[in-house]
């Protein structure tokens, strides 16, 4: 039995436009996705902002009811058996919210230990263990409002583990952390699967998914566009060549015109100081440098280079399709 199973999971939101003449509009955040996560696996849901990662996770942790389709966690239906699902999962999200700032880190954990029904006799020991695990020992009696973003993030992880859940959902846990904090967080996450937990991690950092996950599903505009081990995903886009052109003041519409060229797989623009770098992924057998330059409408061009694809290119190719 899979630890997490989603079958044709779909979620729409209703929103309104206009003030006087209000019109209802339906937005499809998740468009019928299916995947399964095996027990003990660290599964990554990778995608850009607004791709549907958080909506998917919120359906799985019972905070949102799917519009259609179904999902099961540890064999339990997330709508029908919501109460039992909540008892057996942990949820951690990124950012500084989700903490009672006026309470100390210790009191925050004490409150959530009560909320999750951790037996009174085990609470002290459990909280001490987790403070040790996330490196908040000696700071636990300070008010959380004085904690750095990284400390709050680690407090979140401790909170999510208080009741020793079998499955853990981590929604962008390294977002906004400095490189050292993010590295520490990744090592904490890696230790969770070593302890036998099943983890579903959402992130928009390709390298993070690559370093941590056993398998990855790439999600874009509410759909899963690729699924496999990090190696399999990289192989899928290895058959491209990358052309980088430094441009000073790229003309409007130029990117779209380049994207329309025969042989172009994906196009992205990166800002680098005064210049933009047009990153064009092409099929390896085609030579498109002149054709691309022809679409830049005489803009000043700097350095032009060709290189092998990186992991980031693989990700861009998938989400830009």
């Amino acid at each position, binding site marked *: 039995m899979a630890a997490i199973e989603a079958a044709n999971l779909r979620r729409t939101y209703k929103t309104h436009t206009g003030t006087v003449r209000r019109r209802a509009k339906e937005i499809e955040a998740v468009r019928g996705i299916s995947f399964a996560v095996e027990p003990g696996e660290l599964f990554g849901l990778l995608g850009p902002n607004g791709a549907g990662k958080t909506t998917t996770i919120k359906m799985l942790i019972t*905070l949102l009811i799917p519009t259609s389709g179904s999902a099961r966690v540890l064999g339990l239906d997330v709508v029908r058996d919501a109460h039992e699902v909540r008892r057996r999962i942990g*949820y951690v999200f990124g950012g500084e*919210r*989700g903490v009672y700032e*006026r*309470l100390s880190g210790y009191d925050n954990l004490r409150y959530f230990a*009560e909320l999750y029904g951790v037996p009174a006799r085990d609470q002290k020991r459990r909280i001490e263990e987790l403070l040790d695990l996330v490196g908040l020992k000696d700071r636990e009696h300070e*008010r959380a409002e004085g904690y750095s973003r990284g400390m709050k993030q680690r407090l979140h992880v401790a909170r999510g583990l208080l009741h020793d859940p079998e499955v853990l959902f981590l929604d962008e846990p390294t977002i906004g952390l400095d490189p050292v904090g993010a590295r520490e967080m990744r090592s904490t996450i890696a230790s969770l699967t070593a302890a036998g937990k099943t983890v579903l991690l959402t992130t928009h950092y390709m390298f993070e998914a690559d370093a941590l996950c056993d398998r990855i599903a790439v999600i874009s505009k509410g759909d899963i566009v690729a699924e496999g081990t990090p190696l399999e995903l990289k192989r899928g886009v290895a058959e491209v060549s990358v052309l980088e052109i430094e441009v000073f003041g790229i003309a409007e519409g130029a990117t779209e015109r380049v994207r329309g060229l025969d042989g172009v797989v994906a196009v992205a623009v990166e800002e680098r100081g005064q210049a933009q770098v047009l990153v064009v992924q092409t099929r390896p057998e085609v030579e498109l440098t002149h054709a691309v330059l022809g679409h830049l409408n005489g803009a000043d061009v700097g350095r032009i280079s060709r290189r092998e694809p990186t992991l980031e290119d693989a990700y861009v190719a998938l989400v830009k399709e």
Partner: protein
Amino acid sequence: MSSLRFIGVSWLLQLKMIMRSPFDGIGNVLYPLFFATTAFFVFQAGRSPRTLVYAALGAAVMGMWSSVSTSAGSAMQRERWWGTLELLVAAPRHFSLVLFPSTLGLATVGIYNLAATLLWGRFAFGIHVTIVHWLLFCLSVGGTVLAFGGLGLLFAVSFVRFRAAWVLGNFFEYPVWLICGLLVPLALLPAWVRPISWVLAPTWGMNAIRQSALGGSPVNDLLICLGLGLAYVAIAVLVTDRVLQDARARGTLSLT
């Protein structure tokens, strides 16, 4: 047992949070004194010592009620801003049980309001409130706090469904002062208002506190007050699942 422990611990932590906020603190210290001052000036015209005691007790319960009605809404709003509301809903405890200690904590602050008002009356206006039945008075105050906590819970549950409903908390503040006889006796109000007064616990809590202080029999009033408090809790528990189901279907839990 575990639920009782949960209520106790989270009530304590709730009080900790209220007491640590300088703005809430100043508001809680000064607000009841303004009510009391207004009431004392209005009732001083009557020149009867008994009327002033009546006003002092009324102003005290006004402070208690204000603490619950305005704060229950803003407490829910704060949970949204802090991003903790989703965490509370995602926990396995019944959501009404999660909310109750929070509204009970606010009602408890009302005990301070009561004490501050009576002391203010004594030192600033020379009104000596002599409590005839101390034990019954304390029971009446405790019962009123519990019933207010129940009513606050009912408010809080609706605030989870309707994001802007915290405004209603402010809206309910003043009418209850009048409708429940906190400022003027119910006998002065039109007859059609009375049924509304009867279903509101502050009416009976106020009566019980006045009766016990002035030497009457508060037992019936106190029992009705507690009964209504229980009824509010029961209704809140019953509607909680429906409210949450609706919020999860509409996806409004994460909105601020």
